[in-house]
Each structure stands twice: as C-alpha cells, then as structure tokens.
C-alpha cells in the first residue's frame, strides 16, 4: 500500500467517523423522556407485607380480587403535594363504585409523624403503608416520587405512572384497564 493511499484512507476514515459523531450529537436530546416503562409491567406484583399507620397488617397478596392503586408519597415532595387533591377526588369517586379500586399510600423516605400530620391537615383516609428500609420502593424500582402503580385483581402489575398525576389521568387509565380486563 503506497504511503499516499494509506494517508488518504486514514483521512477518509477520520472524516467518516467525525461525520458520524456529529450526526449522533446533533440527534442527542437534552431531555431524556420520562419512561413510564418498567420491567415489572405484566409481571406479578412484588410481594408487600407491612403495617399501616393505624398499625394494622397489610399483605398485598390478600388484596387479590380487587384493583389496587399504590401511590408512593413523601410529605415534603412538591409534586406529591400538588397531586394530593386529585387523589382525594379519585378516592371519593371510587367509594361510590361497585367494583371499587383500593387506594394505598406507600410512605417513601419519610417519618410516620410527618405523613400522619399531612393527611390530618389535607385529608385522605385510605391506608398508608410503612416502608421499612425502603424495601417496597426498591422492589418496585422507585427512584423518585411521586409514582402511581395499578395492579389488577389477579395481582399483576398493569400500569406505572411516573411523576405528578394530571387531572383525570388515573380514572381514565383505570377504566381503560378495567374494560380490557376479562
């Protein structure tokens, strides 16, 4: 291989690599999309056995037969507080339904007192589950709060909503899942 041709090949190769790099960088988006994906979707929900703030036992397996909505919550997290009224509305609507979905709050990295005080002030009488050591959050793969999960009556994970709920989103998603559930 002559020196000229070798040099030209190297120059060409460098140019190709540079153009490729530029294309990749131009395409790179600074906003990684919020992935509501999870490897747990369509899988049996991870086991949860814990106590509620009222010191009653809670076992997720026992809730089979009903739709279960888990909301991961922290009393200082701003989007959690923002979505709280929507959860109150949801709970009120479900209370009147025949096949009512059960709403549970999973406490994330927060003290019992703070959560109890929050619910005292802002309302919401559904059970709040303690998460000792954060193991429930880890078994669901929760990195940031708030997150809302829907589990079907057979105990399978059907939906994950990451981030603050928007108006009517939870009701809409749940009714879609209900109608497709046979």
């Amino acid at each position: 291989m002559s020196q000229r041709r070798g040099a030209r090949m190297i120059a060409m190769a460098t140019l190709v690599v540079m153009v490729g790099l530029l294309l990749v960088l131009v395409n790179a988006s600074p906003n990684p999309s919020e992935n509501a994906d999870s490897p747990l979707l369509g899988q049996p929900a991870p086991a949860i056995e814990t106590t509620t703030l009222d010191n009653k036992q809670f076992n997720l397996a026992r809730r089979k037969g009903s739709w279960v909505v888990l909301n991961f919550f922290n009393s200082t997290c701003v989007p959690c507080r923002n979505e709280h009224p929507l959860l109150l509305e949801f709970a009120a609507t479900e209370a009147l339904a025949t096949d009512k979905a059960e709403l549970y709050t999973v406490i994330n990295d927060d003290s019992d007192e703070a959560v109890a005080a929050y619910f005292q002030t802002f309302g919401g009488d559904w059970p709040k589950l303690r998460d000792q050591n954060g193991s429930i959050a880890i078994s669901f793969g929760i990195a940031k709060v708030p997150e809302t999960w829907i589990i079907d009556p057979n105990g399978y994970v059907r939906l994950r909503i990451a981030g603050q709920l928007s108006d009517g989103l939870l009701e809409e998603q749940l009714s879609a899942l209900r109608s497709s559930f046979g």
Partner: protein
Amino acid sequence: MMITKSKVKQPTVWVVMLIIVGLLLAVGASRDGGPRTQQERVDAISKRLACPTCQGESVYVSRASASVSLREEIARQVGSGTRSDDQIVAYVEQRFGGQVLLVPRSSGLDALVWALPVAALICALVGLISAFRRWKVSATAEISDAERELVQKALDDF
C-alpha cells in the same frame, strides 16, 4: 557513550532476571487477596449499578437518597447471605430496568463498546507494523542505471 562490556549485563543475566520476575508474579498473582468483608462485597456490587436518579453515577459514588436506600438494600441482601453478587445485580436490574447496569452487556449493540477499542488496537498495530516495514524497505533503496549515469556524468564534468 562507552558501553562497559561488563559480564553482568550479558543476555543470560537478563534471562535469569525474567525468570525471577515470572516467579514473583506467579507467587503474587495466585495469592488470595484475603476474605472480603461484607461491606467490601456491598461496595463491589454497588460499583456495578448506576444510581437511578443521577444518570451516570454509580450507586457506590452517588450520595442521592435513591442510592443510599439501594446501598442499604444491597447490604441487607449481602447480610442475609442468600444471594450471590450476580444475583443481587440481577435483582436490581429486574426492578429498575437495564439502564441501571453500569457495565454494558456483551450482546447486541452494547457489545460494540467493548469490541471497538480492540478493533482500534488491531488497526493501530497493523498500521505500525506496515509503517516500519515500509521504512525498512525505503532505507535500502536501489539505484537505477540512469541514476548511476547521471552521477558519472557529473563527476566527469567536475
């Protein structure tokens, strides 16, 4: 620069030195580093996982609360002694998704990140070898008859 023709620096001495090095390396490399503490096992596992909220830092490095609770969970599982390192990593991956793995998998597109440096190394070695060979060839250049005539003519004119 004078090169002392010392007997000590003969090739045989170097062979002996190489053998000594080989022996030392063999002794050291086969040695066990000692039992790992539980904390060291936790550290090793958390170095293989990425913090789910930080995008880039490992669970070992990150001080975020998600990392802290992950480290605690890993510590719990290590403490219970039921799972191996790989099983614990798989446990976390099952829940948080593939993006939590810090070591790219060796299959699919991810394998490129391991393969490309090796390919680059091979290209580099091939390039170096061919360059050296080319230089050796040009160092022993042939003189053509026309060039000899030219030189002869110039000498005659001089």
